[in-house]
């Protein structure tokens, strides 16, 4: 269906892609308005009874195929009864042997969950954290690393330090999650679990963008931010572009913060008047999920700092030989120094283990983070939670942190045979680092109806110091 398209453009499109089915125009967008959340692509599955079975922004082939397959296997009337709210105490724990709690990922969510559980559980319960990286990285500080305000060693901590706190750490890649037989496999071992917390984050996929390695510097990993810092140090003027290649991406504020920090960096270096800074993003406004007021406030700040903003930039490709980026149907844009956010996908192991839903991410109960598999929870960036306004809860460390606390409490209650009452309420906050020692802060309830209720507190020095203190606290408290 082509919203705001004509019969001719739909026909052309059908021919161009040799589609074996009809493409119907929705010239005035009536059908789109009635059925969609306003984003494209938008996919809707209608059952034979004419009722909506599911919808998603995006089209994730694997996720959809899995859902459709399941529908055929289990006709709706034969589906199992929903699980009881309180499950039985796991057998191992019931036998007095203690429970095996396995946490996948030692990022924001996994780290907090391990800590909470270790503090409250007895020594006979094992807490095993698996991460392929030897270090925990405090990702928000990558932006400071990019502009030379942090060294790499200042924003990482060895995960092996957790062993001092009684958490077992396995520094290996997880290659399979078998939710049914309650086992996780790494390259060298199989580990049984009574409870599993999946906090594997989002996998960055620069390899999905042709020419990325030749032309772009990855704003979202340590190697990339080190290169950005070196490139900025030797930058003597030209065009800097901050590009969001695809949605969703973690930390909706990050591209804006990056541009503002770079602006401040170039000004202090004395090359600002010889430079242009551009932000290219498929979003229609900054931080769309937080509402129009927030978007306007950020746009104003960008304008004041002479940063060119290109919303609705649906990135299509980059051409390293010409140093250009191109949006679909648009003119090439020349960029001398390109800082890019690569596409994000659910981690390969989650996909290959059949744990993704139609969104392409793990689906959970929005309040308990429980998945459809008994004893398996998914927290942080790896899950996809739909909000009342039809958009998704942003991927942010603050949510991974709070969700981890909720899941830890619920597991604790289950082990103790008590009703699990802890729930995630959708509250969160986010700093917006502006450079020059100033930051703004947005805080609110993302589960509010009909829209998230988020308030932006104006830029001030104390918010910046709040962010610095939080970083210091984080890296000391959990290690």
């Amino acid at each position, binding site marked *: *269906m082509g919203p705001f398209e004509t019969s001719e453009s739909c026909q052309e*499109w059908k021919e161009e892609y040799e589609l074996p089915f009809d493409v119907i125009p929705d010239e005035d967008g009536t059908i789109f308005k009635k059925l969609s959340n306003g984003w494209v692509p938008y996919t809707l599955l209608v059952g*034979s009874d004419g009722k909506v079975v599911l919808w998603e922004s995006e089209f994730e082939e694997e996720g959809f195929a899995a859902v459709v397959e399941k529908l055929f296997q289990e006709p709706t009337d034969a589906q199992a009864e929903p699980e009881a709210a309180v499950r039985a105490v796991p057998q191992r724990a019931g036998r007095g042997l203690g429970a095996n709690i396995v946490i996948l990922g030692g990022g924001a969510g996994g780290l907090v969950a391990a800590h909470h559980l270790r503090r409250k559980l007895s020594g006979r319960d094992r807490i095993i954290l698996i991460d392929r990286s030897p270090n925990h990285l405090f990702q928000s500080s990558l932006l400071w690393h990019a502009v030379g305000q942090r060294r790499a060693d200042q924003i990482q901590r060895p995960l092996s330090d957790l062993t001092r706190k009684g958490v077992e750490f396995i520094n290996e890649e997880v290659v399979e999650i078998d939710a049914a037989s309650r086992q996780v496999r790494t390259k060298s071992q199989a580990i049984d679990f009574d409870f599993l917390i999946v906090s594997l984050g989002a996998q960055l996929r620069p390899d999905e963008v042709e020419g990325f390695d030749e032309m772009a510097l990855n704003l979202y990993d340590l190697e990339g931010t080190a290169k950005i810092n070196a490139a900025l140090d030797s930058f003597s003027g030209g065009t800097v572009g901050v590009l969001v290649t695809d949605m969703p991406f973690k930390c909706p504020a990050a591209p804006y913060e990056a541009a503002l920090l770079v602006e401040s960096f170039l000004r202090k270096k004395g090359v600002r008047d010889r430079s242009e800074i551009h932000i290219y993003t498929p979003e229609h406004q900054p931080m769309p999920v937080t509402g129009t007021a927030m978007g306007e406030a950020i746009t104003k700040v960008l304008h004041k700092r002479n940063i060119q903003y290109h919303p609705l930039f649906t990135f299509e490709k980059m051409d390293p030989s010409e140093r250009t980026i191109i949006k679909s149907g648009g003119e090439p844009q020349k960029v001398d120094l390109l800082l890019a956010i690569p596409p994000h996908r659910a981690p390969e192991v989650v996909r290959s283990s059949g744990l993704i839903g139609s969104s392409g991410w793990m689906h959970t109960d929005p309040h308990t983070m429980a998945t459809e598999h008994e004893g398996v929870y998914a927290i942080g960036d790896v899950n996809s939670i739909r909000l009342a306004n039809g958009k998704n809860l942003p991927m942010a460390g603050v949510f991974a942190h709070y969700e981890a606390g909720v899941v830890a409490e619920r597991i604790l209650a289950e082990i103790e045979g008590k009703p699990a009452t802890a729930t995630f309420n959708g509250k969160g906050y986010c700093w917006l680092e502006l450079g020059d020692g100033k930051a703004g802060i947005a805080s609110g309830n993302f589960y509010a109806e009909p829209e998230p209720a988020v308030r932006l507190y104006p830029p001030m020095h104390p918010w910046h110091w709040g962010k610095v203190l939080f970083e210091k606290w984080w890296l000391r408290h959990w290690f």
Partner: protein
Amino acid sequence: MKVIDEGNKGVAEGTLVPLDELGLPPSTTGGLLIVFWKGQ
């Protein structure tokens, strides 16, 4: 992915889609997959 009409909220699962009323083909073959897509 891009936004073309921010005011929309999507439809809840279980909502009856008035296919006739919207001029959409009836789902006679067990179901209907509708993908909204925009060329540019």
